[in-house]
């Protein structure tokens, strides 16, 4: 452990990436989530050496045996592991082994955040586990109320997180003895995440982290009809994570951040693979972010790019700390009824960068609102060029009919080729709520239905 190769001194960035999360200091907001990469001291040393700001240790509890195999994935169009699922349970190592290693790691890396993830059942067991964890010198504890497979069948994990009353009660047991910050990790397998977040707060938690994995089946083997991961002719519902879950996680993080009754710090989890993902979570209210699948895919080294990317980004925005970013986008989300009905955006195609795949045309034609025509480049005055040759039609937007849905710009394979342009209107902004009021007062004629 002492013989790491020498490195050139780090180039110092203008932005200081350190954050304080529920009283826990971390040199950067990038933490490893509780999971296979945080199972041993050996891994923790390697992770901190690579630059991770914090580690949430793999959940400690009554050690449990595991099955073989354990992981499965969704691959998409040549991209491996766009989504990932696992049926691995909490640590299969003895608590005393884990606690001994936690102490060793904290001694060696005093400036990093080290969090013990815990899971047990009775009040007495929780008290015992909290005390033993705190004895190791960790900076805080994370309560695993989210594991959606195996442990929930034993009344733990998501079985707790899915029942706000139980989650509140167990959190309060923990708070009876905890002296270090306590983070409650939430399950997304619930109708309204804010209920779970508020329950954790009522129980006395200092922070929450989310999301844990989503119950899933990633693929079915079409030869023997048993999904992966395959265990002796059977499978079970696994916990889904990886890049594909990011939109779900962002939504839940923002829901909690926006709730005026909540107000606790949030550690964002779910499909974070790079600095951009992290920055988006932070903009929606996360103070730290936790990463697992991306490390399982590429190793601890990815943190260097995350640190560098976030620093450069913050510098470019004139932000001197991640705290300047945290929560910046939260208030931009409104109810649908509070969106301006009189805002108009249309698609514009840059024919000089268009390569002529016509995907915008067919997407609009078959999948949206039929307002991109294929026309002759000469008679339209667009002329020939790359993608515009004799006998080959070019896509042209009928702006008057364009509803501004974005679909063409989403399917276009060329960056910046289809842009969505705001069209000024004479109308004053009017939301659905305002429209309802105006209608009831007879101050406005009903908006005619689309032909």
């Amino acid at each position, binding site marked *: 452990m002492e013989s790491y190769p020498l490195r050139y001194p780090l180039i110092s960035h203008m932005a200081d990436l350190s954050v304080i999360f529920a009283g826990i200091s971390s040199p950067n907001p990038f933490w490893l989530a509780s999971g296979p990469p945080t199972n041993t001291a050996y891994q923790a040393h390697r992770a901190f050496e690579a630059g991770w700001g914090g580690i949430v240790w793999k959940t400690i509890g009554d050690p449990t045996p595991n099955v073989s195999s354990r992981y499965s994935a969704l691959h998409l169009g040549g991209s491996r592991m766009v989504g990932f699922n696992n049926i691995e349970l909490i640590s299969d190592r003895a608590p005393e082994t884990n606690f001994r290693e936690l102490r060793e790691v904290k001694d060696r890396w005093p400036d990093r955040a080290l969090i013990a993830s815990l899971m047990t059942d009775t009040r007495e067991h929780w008290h015992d586990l909290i005390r033993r964890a705190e004895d190791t010198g960790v900076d805080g504890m994370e309560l695993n109320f989210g594991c959606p497979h195996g442990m929930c069948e034993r009344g733990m994990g998501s079985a707790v997180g899915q029942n706000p009353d139980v989650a509140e009660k167990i959190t309060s047991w923990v708070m009876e003895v905890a002296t270090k910050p306590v983070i409650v990790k939430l399950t997304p397998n619930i109708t309204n995440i804010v209920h779970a977040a508020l329950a954790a707060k009522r129980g006395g938690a200092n922070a929450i982290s989310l999301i844990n994995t989503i119950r899933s089946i990633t693929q079915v083997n079409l030869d023997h009809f048993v999904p992966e991961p395959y265990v002796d002719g059977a499978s079970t519902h696994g916990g889904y994570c990886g890049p594909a879950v990011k939109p779900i996680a962002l939504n839940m993080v923002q829901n909690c951040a926006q709730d005026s009754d909540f107000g606790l710090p949030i550690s964002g989890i779910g499909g974070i693979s790079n600095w951009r993902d992290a920055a988006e979570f932070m903009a929606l209210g996360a103070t730290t972010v936790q990463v697992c699948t991306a490390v399982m895919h590429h190793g601890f080294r990815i943190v260097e790019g995350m640190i560098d990317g976030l620093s450069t980004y913050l510098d470019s925005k004139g932000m001197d700390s991640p705290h300047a970013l945290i929560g910046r986008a939260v208030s931009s989300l409104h109810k649908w009824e509070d969106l301006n009905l009189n805002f108009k955006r249309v698609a514009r195609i840059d024919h000089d960068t268009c*390569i002529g795949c*016509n995907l915008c045309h*067919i997407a609009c034609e078959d999948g949206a609102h039929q307002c991109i025509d294929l026309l002759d480049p000469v008679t339209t005055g667009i002329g020939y060029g*790359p993608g515009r040759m004799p006998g*080959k039609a070019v896509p042209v937007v009928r702006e008057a009919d364009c509803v501004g849905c974005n679909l063409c710009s989403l399917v276009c394979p060329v960056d910046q080729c289809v842009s969505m342009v705001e069209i000024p209107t004479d109308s004053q902004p009017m939301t659905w709520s305002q429209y309802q009021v105006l209608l009831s007062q007879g101050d406005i004629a009903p908006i005619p239905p689309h032909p």
Partner: protein
Amino acid sequence: MARPNQPSAESQSQFPLMEEIRGPLSDRAALAESQRCLYCYDAPCIHACPTGIDVPTFVKKISTGDVTGAAKTILTANILGASCARVCPTEVLCEGACVLGHEYDPIQIGLLQRHATDFVTARGISVLDSPAKANGFRVAIIGAGPAGLGCAADLAALGHRVVIFEKEALAGGLNTRGVAYYKMKPKVSLDEVRLVESLGVEIRTGVNVGKDLHADELLTEYDAIFVAIGLGSGSRLGIPGEVGAGVRAALDFIRDIHEIPLENVSVGKKVLVIGGGNTAIDAVSQARRLGASSATLAYRRKEDQMSAYAFEVAHARAADCRLIFEAIPREVLRNTEGNLTGVRFTHASSGTEWIEPCDQLLLAIGQPKQDHLLKSLFPALELNAIGCVLTDPLTAGTSLHKVFAGGDCANGGMEVVNAVGEGKKAAMAIHHMLTGKPTVPKLQTSRSGIARPAAGAGLWNPIRSATH
């Protein structure tokens, strides 16, 4: 994307340079390449293909693991899909039209097509329907080259009784005996001939129409005739000393490569090839690859006037061939024993005179038109100014009722895929003429209604796959 260059399995270790210069894609490479395809709508690659193969559909099928389905899409549009995958100048056809080529690499459509067709051939998977129920019409085809086979397959699939008359012992035309060995082995072509026969087409080889059988008999016995006799064997220079030992048509030299063991092919030490087309390139390149100590190509015009494709010229240079330009041959030189010693040239611009020594001279100055043969077969058949059959570009119909023509004898000499496309076009017109049934393109084209230049058969695919 790495371009594979592994040697083919059927190794001819004595002549490693004669192995395929562009080997097949591995399964993984094919999958990765297929996943790059954008799946364009109204895709330019389809329109660039004279047989109208629905390229995005077959590439998408490869990307989902349905390689058999990909082969179906290809072979129902172009029965010679396996040979076209090897010999098509994809750089100027489908791949040249690929929209990804504007900024980076186009999809390697040719290699993907080969991947799919090889897949079913290697596994003996039958992707085409068994012969259609006979509709009572009989069609005769003269010539079992790409045009004849392309026409026969579509007609047979529609229920016509098709008989092809082929003067050679083996069917397949230049695909069987005239393609550079390092591009395609004759087996690929012969497999395709069997595929056409599996549709119920009868091929009578060794039958020379005009000698063994009078063309009038065909006109009486059959409801329609498709003339696809190709071009003649090599033209002559018409200069002193040309007739004699050591001088051959380049096509005969290439044919030897296909028909006799490579070690028995007669190759000089100093080989001189005269011509500027793709056959000249194939000949000079193969002479060098077969062990000639020097191989020189002499062309009477400048390099940019060569009809050979630039990438073919690059292949020849890569094989260490020498290319000289503006070289006008004046006299073939022989010693007192009559052995070939060289060719005297004058330079087109400067008029300088010089001698290129050689002990083998291969002539690739074009194949002569078959105007005499055509006139003897069908005295009333109208020919065009260059001695080819005058045909309607949309129907391949000729000046004679019931007689259609396509391939090199009509177009003057184009690619294999053009010949197949013309065969398909003729099949469409013959079917319409005999049955009165309309021929409807398979796919919806764009609503824009832009008139496209007539490009082969478009998307008309009467050959149905086994699971349609």
